[in-house]
């Protein structure tokens, strides 16, 4: 079974402060990990995926297989980062099912 846990429902930070959104996963194989974001009144969209090791809008995430974590980080929060963030997991190959966490609402205080 695959499971994604996001322990924080709400994370409030001041503009310019560092951000870390936590994500832990449970999966018996080798997973693909993603972060999706939903801005106000917009549809859910992919933010980044671990296999690309890219930085999107200043956000990065490192897959830690030992701790089964995929935390999302940004050194300096911006007001436009306020949104709902979902961590997601998929199996490799085959007919992949993507499992989402419950989401963390990031609120950046001006």
């Amino acid at each position, binding site marked *: 079974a695959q499971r994604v846990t996001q322990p924080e429902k709400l994370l409030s930070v001041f503009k310019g402060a560092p951000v870390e959104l936590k994500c832990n996963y449970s999966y018996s194989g080798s997973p693909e990990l993603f972060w999706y974001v939903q801005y106000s009144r917009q549809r*859910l969209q992919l933010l980044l*995926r671990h296999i690309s090791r890219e930085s999107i809008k200043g956000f990065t995430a490192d897959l830690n297989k030992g701790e089964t974590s995929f935390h999302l980080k940004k050194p300096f929060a911006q007001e436009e980062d306020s949104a709902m963030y979902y961590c997601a997991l998929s199996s490799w190959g085959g007919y*992949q099912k*993507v499992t*989402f966490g419950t*989401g963390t609402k990031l609120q950046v205080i001006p």
Partner: protein
Amino acid sequence: DAGVTQSPTHLIKTRGQQVTLRCSPKSGHDTVSWYQQALGQGPQFIFQYYEEEERQRGNFPDRFSGHQFPNYSSELNVNALLLGDSALYLCASSERETGTGVGYTFGSGTRLTVV
């Protein structure tokens, strides 16, 4: 490209009725996945269609069924509606060849209210 298109955007049904939701995937995508998102929750996987067949299924009862057409569009059917079926239903498309590794493209969803 309009991306993923879902219809209708909102729907109100009475308990016990049946409902059909529709999804057109992004151009070039051949795989459609359906999710249920209850208020305050993350999307929950219902099932996935590829080549007009159900390929993966989540933990949902048989009241939830689907279909994929030759043009890759898809329908989600829910029979014998319960109050607990009230949720946002999301359609996500992807390309089988590249898998979900490049991520889903989501529709804006259908808000179903069961009264």
